[in-house]
């Protein structure tokens, strides 16, 4: 069951990206060609078990990286984090680089996120620090009459 759900959770991200694909561009067409060359007329045994997997009454809204601050590292950070949770959870935070660094450790220790190291860790921290800094607009009470 866990395996099926694991696959189901992957489908979510695949479906999401497929929706973004729209009409295949040159790159998608190249990849398409690659598929045809690779598989020829190979028969397919696929896994349509998805219908029997988890039926949720709630579909998370499909987030897109473009909704978030356009800074280097956005796509990598977005897809890395959304393997498990929505990016809104990230974007509602505002932290110093040191606290973002600690948060990556927390995600690895508490939730089994693959450990990020070296240049990859630095690049994701660069994005998080600049896109969602400690100085981000404070949360909490918002004046309902203030036109922003």
């Amino acid at each position, binding site marked *: 069951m866990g395996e099926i759900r694991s696959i189901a959770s992957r489908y979510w991200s*695949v479906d999401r990206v497929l929706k973004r694909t729209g009409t295949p561009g040159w790159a998608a067409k190249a990849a398409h060609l690659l598929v045809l060359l690779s598989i020829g007329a190979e028969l397919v045994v*696929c896994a349509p078990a998805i219908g029997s997997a988890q039926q949720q*009454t709630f579909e998370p809204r499909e987030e897109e990286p473009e*909704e978030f601050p356009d800074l280097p590292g956005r796509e990598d950070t977005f897809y890395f984090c959304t393997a498990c949770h*929505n990016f809104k*959870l990230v974007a509602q935070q505002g932290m110093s680089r040191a606290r973002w660094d*600690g948060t990556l450790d927390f995600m690895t220790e*508490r*939730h089994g996120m693959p450990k990020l190291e070296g240049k990859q860790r630095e690049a994701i921290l660069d994005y998080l620090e600049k896109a969602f800094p400690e100085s981000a607009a*404070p949360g909490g009470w918002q004046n309902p009459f203030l036109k922003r």
Partner: protein
Amino acid sequence: MSGRIGKIERSIEELYRNDPERADAVVFGRKDGPSRRGFLGGAGLAAFGAAVGGAIPFSQNMPAGLVPAALAQDKPAAPAAPKGPVHLDFPGKDKGLVVIGEKPLVAETPEHLLNDDTTPVEKFYIRNNGQIPDEAKEPEKWTVKIEGEVNKPLEISLGELKSKYKAQTLRMVLECGGNGRSFFTPRASGNQWTNGGAGCAEWTGVRLADVLKTAGVKPSGIYTAHYAADLHLSGDASKLPLSRGVRMPKAMEPESMIVWAMNGKPLPNIHGGPVRLIFPGWAGSASQKWLTRIVIRDKEHDGPGMTGTSYRLTIKPMVPGEKADPKNFKILESMPVRSVITAPANGTKLAAGTRDVALRGASWAGDLSVQRVDISLDYGQSWQAAKLEKPKNKFDWQRWTANLKLPSDGYFEIWSRATDSKGTMQPHVAPNWNPSGYGGNPFHRIAVLVG
């Protein structure tokens, strides 16, 4: 895995849709690696890079089965991020609830929707740590195990719980441990709750103490550990989304319950049905949803959500925003005193000349009761006492009312401040900063515009 045989694939999209892992293997020679995310590497990487016309940074971290964004050219423009609060669209739930996160699903109840004496299920906040399980098809056969430091381990069905034990119904507050987190400066990490991670419902079930008596807790049993049916967000069945527990004295309190009904109806799946725990007054995460097992332990439970800075407060106050010393933390148990103004709603416009405003609200204080609620119209320079009602039973919230006289037209802020039975008041700002933002209980504040 059953499968269709003899179908020829027609496109990369179809291939990925049908079997992403196989698609990776076919297209890019990519195999799901030792990590569940299945990172891209080796010869497949070159093929991948060639297909998208460049090197792919972080390729080894690319989740298996994910069509890379670079392949998704000519895509339709991304929708703009929603502006302002996102309202919940969930069967049986009020559309006024505000979504804090969608995966996991977390939604809070704006203060003005806490205006009912008993919070209806439709308006009750939602907190999940993992995936939402499928609804149980045969709820009466749902079982809960009691094991660990007990003389007689048990497995009991919901049907047996109902027939063998005396049921009770109590109206009690359930409150998320992180309620009020958004009021911390600098921002504390986690779901940014305002005051809406709380509600007060009628819970029907049995005393946990009665069930534990049947099992016979050994003298060595000092702590509970709760386990549930929900899966970790990653879908990995070997990981627990959350497993918390309480000290034995809390477990034995007459109001600590195994419940199956909420406001007189079977406990909805989204609230942990068919069976959940309720430990009123304490951080809601102890009140495990979709309860399957309670293990009695001979030491403080150390499941996910019990350690580090999760559901913990500082022992010695720390500098806000600085690096936390994990040794300086103790478990958050009772929630702090809080009040909310439930009418009028924040942002209400009143007709010019309005001078009388009738206020309604609620207040509660974790394990304690509320001794008074005060209201200010002048930013805390002066306060007037509200009329405070008594709770129906222990852990019920206390409703309050007040009549305010406005001196003129214009912009006014109305603040509420509750004082608990030990004399502790809500503070002006969220106190005792901690990195995950627990214990944030400043005054509630609304603004109204007259004329």
